[in-house]
Every structure is written in C-alpha cells, then in structure tokens.
C-alpha cells in the first residue's frame, strides 16, 4: 500500500543539510516524504501549504533552523506563527491540525531529521490520507 504523501519544505541552510546527512548516514526515514528545498522556512507561505494539500499531500512538514540561527534572522519565528494560526484555521476546515508541523533541524542533525520525519510519517499514517472534497 502506498503511504500518504508528506511534503517537506526544508530550509536550504540547515534542515536540507540535515536531511542530506541523514541520507549519507543511511539513517532510515520514510520514503513518502517529498523534500522541497526553500531558501528559508520563512518563505513557506500558507498558500503553499494549502496548495500542497490541494495537489494531494496528506501532511506538510516544515523544517527550519533552530531559533536564533535563521540566516534571515527571523524567518523561522514568522513561520512558527503562521503555521500555528493556519493549524487553527485548518481545524475549522475539518483538516486535522497535526497534518502541518513545524520543527527545527540544524545542518549537523541527521539523526534529529530522521526522528522528526519518522514521527511525522507515523502521525500521518494514523490520520490516514487526506481526502479533499472536489479535488481536481
């Protein structure tokens, strides 16, 4: 059975490297995670997340630099606020807020990446695929 797709937006400066590290270290992380590199987690707009859902994602994982480490200073704080507010709105749409997750992974944290990714995959597995009405 195909696992429901998770789109993961990875900050170029940290989490993307972290994911790379995890890959190189042959750490296991789920295959249904589709990574997309962004310049900063702050670039991930709410519209982008909804677009991912509209196009078939069942979960969205946004990973950025740890607080204080963002290359653009505060992109990650902004993302945190946006996604917390979006989660609240999603609940009103009947979409479980857990389908959107924001977390921090530094460049060297391959293991942390694998752990966060696995947890997210587990959450989405439990929730099952997201079936948006009137898709297409």
């Amino acid at each position, binding site marked *: 059975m195909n696992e429901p797709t998770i789109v993961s937006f990875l900050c170029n400066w940290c989490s993307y490297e972290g994911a790379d590290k995890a890959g190189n270290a042959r750490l296991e992380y789920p295959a249904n995670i589709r990574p997309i590199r962004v310049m900063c987690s702050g670039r991930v*707009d*709410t*519209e982008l*997340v*909804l*677009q991912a*859902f*509209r196009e078939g994602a069942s979960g969205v994982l946004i990973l950025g630099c740890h*607080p*204080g480490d963002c290359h653009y200073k*505060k992109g990650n*704080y*902004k993302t*945190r*606020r*946006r996604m*917390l*507010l*979006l989660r*609240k*709105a999603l609940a*009103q*749409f*009947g*979409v479980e807020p857990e389908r959107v997750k924001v977390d921090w992974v530094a460049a060297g944290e391959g293991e942390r990446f694998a752990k966060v990714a696995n947890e997210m995959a587990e959450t989405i597995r439990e929730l099952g695929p997201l*079936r*948006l*009405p*009137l898709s297409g």
Partner: protein
Amino acid sequence: MAKPKVALYWCASCGGCEEAVVDLAEDILKVVEAVDIIFWPVAMDFKKADVEGMADGEIAVSFINGAIRTEEQGEMVKLLRRKSGLVVAFGSCAHLGGIPGLANFWNRETIFERVYKGVPTMDNPEGVLPQTRTAVAGKELTIPEFWDTVHTLDQVIPVDYYLPGCAPPPDLIMNAITAILEGKLPEKGAVLAPDKSLCDTCPLADSKPEKLSLKEVKRPYEVILDPEKCFLAQGVICLGPATRSGCGERCINACMPCRGCFGPTKGARDQGARSLSFVASLLGIEEEEKMTDEEVEKLIDQIPDPAGLFYMYSLPSSLLRRRIMK
C-alpha cells in the same frame, strides 16, 4: 449598427447586486441607449426559451451575480456561457462565493437540521423537511434541490472578467460597461478594478507605521476606533493589506475595518491564506525570540474564528473550498 446585446442574470443572490445596477440611477439610461438588454429576469419578461433560441455567441456580454448552489443555476449559466461572447462574474458571490459561501462550513443535512428542526421556534414533531417532490392531495409540487456545496461562477463555467465587491460600486460598473463598449478590455481573466491593495488608497494609510507589530489583537467591539488612525495600528484586524482596492474605502469611511469583499490582489490564489499570512507575520514581532510555542498560541487565540474571518467572502474559492464533513 445593431446595439450589443447584454444579459443580466442572478443565481444564489441577495438581490443587492441587482440593486447596485438600479443604483446607477441616471447612468442606467445611458446604458440602455448604448446596449440592448435582452435578458434580465428581475426586470424584464424574457424566458429561458428566448435565450435558447439565440445563436451561440449572440449575446455580447452576460453579467452574472450570486453564487451557484442548485442544478438549475448550473444549467442556466452554462446556457448563458454558450450564447455569450463574454461572461462577467458580478459581485463577491459570483467572484469568490461571498457571504452565503460560509455555508461551506456545513452541508445540506446539517443546515436542514438546524433550520427545520433545531431552531427554538420550531414546531415540527414529525421532522418534516423540504422535499424536491411532494404530493399534496394528489397534486405534485416541486422545488429545486439544495446542494451541499456553494460554488463560485468560475467553478461552473469559464469566466472572462470579474467585477468585485459586495455589491460592486457604480463607478466600477460604469467603467466596465464603457470598457466593453469601447473594446478597451484588459487581458482575459482580469478583475475590473485597480490592481493595488486597499492600503495603497486608504485615507488612513499615512498613519500606518512602517514597521507594524500587533502586540495583541482586539476585536472591533472591544475598542472605540480612532477614525484617523490605521486600524491595524490600533490592534484591530483590517484586511486592507491583502484586499484589492477600488471600493472607495467604504467601510473605512464608516470607521470600520475592511473584511475583504473585493477579493485579493493579482496573483493570489487563496485570499484567506494571504490574509492569514500577513496577520500572522505582524503578531507579536517584538518579543518573538522570547516566546514559547504556548505563548504564541495564546496570542493566536485572540483570533477565535480565523477561517470565518479570513475567508469571510471567499470560502468557496479557497484552495480547500469547503470543510470536510465527517
């Protein structure tokens, strides 16, 4: 030369858009001189059959207001599409779904339950609900089926232009008609209103600080708004930054914040998401490094109905379109 033929039609509408046409007052006479209104059910006696009898594309332009929520409305707009050179979605409901589009937080069943059984005035021991077909003493009566989901016009037929607003203001209606008559239309798919944000034209814009930060969110009833100062700077959410200009700053002039009836500016796919984004980015900037997730949540909690607020006029046109009913 024959005058161009124009049709006006309404779907799930409050009638305010029709009233907006009537409000053209003297200007309506100019319109009537220049065009031939061939179909306007509220005002004139032409039937569907008359439209069916026309050649494809014979109607120069159809202005359609109201959201789409019944099979018959769907059929009617498809017919008008076939017969019309241009179709203009008129008003917020046709453009974005409008206020009646908030019904997409529910479905037919839950709405019927409330309206015909749940309300406290109800006396309906047998749980009677409206039926598309009913036999009453051997006589059959029919009413159209009520859909689960409210649709925007462009979800049902291709739309050439949009006239935004609830209802669209007279000057934009006249501009649109003039542009059509003179053949000076922008590219297809355009919204026939300025491509600026409301903040760009707002009389209070000068008082909007360069670096805005919302320390807390206040609801309009909790404060007495200063009519001279940007509402966001007073801590009250105004959707001006993510809303298209052109309304004449109508709500602002009455000292009330914008709720977005003009829809988003160019390029936005989801008005609510845009609004949500800009509000979230202003919230608690000053202390952001020190805040825990819980503290951020608390701040966000001051917006108790984000989906209803940010999608007040545009729920059916959102990327998610409606709530998933379990």
